[in-house]
């Protein structure tokens, strides 16, 4: 499942060579011990590195660390770190691959994030692989205790407010956030939620410095990111690539008509446009790239994804509860050749009604996918209205 592309112009930083899990001794031989550094020095290193979150939002890590640390000082409550390995996105494999192959990089990163924020406890939240991680933890002598948390396998389990609630003993469901969890999260303590890949990058930045980190990527988006590549007819594989890499070097686009960039909350691009794009932190989401075979109907594919997304609504917020099933049903209609009536305008209206009106970004991500499908597959929509479909040719 894991492979490195020989023609990518960087050796992998995060994934252990050879595709075998790295035990603690091998890890220490390769990287040396976790460097000891004062919080201020760590924060400076992260700021200079330009590291951004790899969970999909690409938020500057330095700013998040700072606000959690500041909230800790202000409130007198000791912060909590949650390493997010939930990977609820069904098309993504990168976090579980990283945790399987390089668990100690993530565990180092947790300690460094705890040191930078002054945290007194940490949690590593995963859906699978918990026993291996628990056993990896027993071999370490970490200053800050880490607990492995097993999450229910749901799309929204990895949403940050859901994580904070679950770690605090509640349900793994998104919650209204005011103040935000970076100020008041687990048991009212300032809480840092950071994707596991982000923490692994942090472990390398602390060792090799920001200048080293910036030798990959672009001036504006330094570093590299793990991507999950779905090429038609092949098992998905995980690859590490620097920002700025042309997408056509990450996956063969031949024989595809469109690419889904960023996964189920991502955007469809027609293949010619995908061929002109590069790997960009603001559009790649959590790094999923899926090619649509040229003989498949993008509307059918999208309708399937939307049925899943509607089923994964937590059902807590009215607009999402009402809007997502309607949008999904309408798309199932649009995915079949035949009369469309007012369905297209209904979808557009409902998309406007769910966007930005929920406790989490599930409606927003769903709308992003819907709008990109309506644009990218506009010719297919017109063909369906006339009774034709790509798949029936």
């Amino acid at each position: 499942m894991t492979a490195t592309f020989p023609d990518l112009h960087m050796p992998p930083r995060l994934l252990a060579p050879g595709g075998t899990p790295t035990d603690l001794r091998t890890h220490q031989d390769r990287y040396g011990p976790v460097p000891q550094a004062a919080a201020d020095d760590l924060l400076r290193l992260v700021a200079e590195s330009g590291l951004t979150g790899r969970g999909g939002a690409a938020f500057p890590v330095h700013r998040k660390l700072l606000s959690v640390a500041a909230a800790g000082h202000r409130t007198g409550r000791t912060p909590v770190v949650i390493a997010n390995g939930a990977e609820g996105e069904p098309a993504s494999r990168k976090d579980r691959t990283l945790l399987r192959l390089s668990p100690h990089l993530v565990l180092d990163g947790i300690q460094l994030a705890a040191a930078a924020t002054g945290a007194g406890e940490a949690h590593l939240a995963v859906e699978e692989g918990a026993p291996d991680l628990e056993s990896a933890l027993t071999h370490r002598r970490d200053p800050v205790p880490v607990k492995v948390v097993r999450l229910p396998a749901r799309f929204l389990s990895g949403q940050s407010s859901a994580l904070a609630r679950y770690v605090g003993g509640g349900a793994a469901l998104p919650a209204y956030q005011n103040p935000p969890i970076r100020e008041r999260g687990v048991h009212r303590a300032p809480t840092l939620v950071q994707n596991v890949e982000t923490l692994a990058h942090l472990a390398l930045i602390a060792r090799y410095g920001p200048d080293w980190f910036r030798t990959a990527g672009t001036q504006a988006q330094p570093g590299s990111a793990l991507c999950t590549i779905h090429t038609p007819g092949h098992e998905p594989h995980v690859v590490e690539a620097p920002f700025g890499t042309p997408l056509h070097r990450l996956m063969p686009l031949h024989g595809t008509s469109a690419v889904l960039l960023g996964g189920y909350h991502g955007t469809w691009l027609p293949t010619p446009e995908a061929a002109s794009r590069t790997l960009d932190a603001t559009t790649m989401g959590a790094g999923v790239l899926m090619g649509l075979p040229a003989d498949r109907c993008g509307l059918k594919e999208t309708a399937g994804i939307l049925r899943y997304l509607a089923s994964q609504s937590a059902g807590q917020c009215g607009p999402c509860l009402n809007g997502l099933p309607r949008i999904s049903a309408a798309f199932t209609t649009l995915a079949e050749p035949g009369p469309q009536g007012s369905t297209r305008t209904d979808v557009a209206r409902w998309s406007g009604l769910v966007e930005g009106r929920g406790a989490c970004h599930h409606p927003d991500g769903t709308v992003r996918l819907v709008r990109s499908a309506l644009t990218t597959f506009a010719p297919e929509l017109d063909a369906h209205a006339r009774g034709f479909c790509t798949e029936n040719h």
Partner: protein
Amino acid sequence: MNERIDIDWTGCEAHGLCAELLPEHIELDEWGYPLVANMPLPPHTLKRARRAASDCPALALKLRVVRDT
């Protein structure tokens, strides 16, 4: 510093009282949930807005202090 209307979407049950109390700021969508105009509340509306917040049967309407940026 100004105050804006914020909705706890996990709490809102589409009672619609807020749209009656603050018609110039809140409309209801086709399912009965509030569509809030995204602008600061003028001073003369604040009192009614506080009442809308305290009268909301689900206590889902909040007034949020926003710092001018």
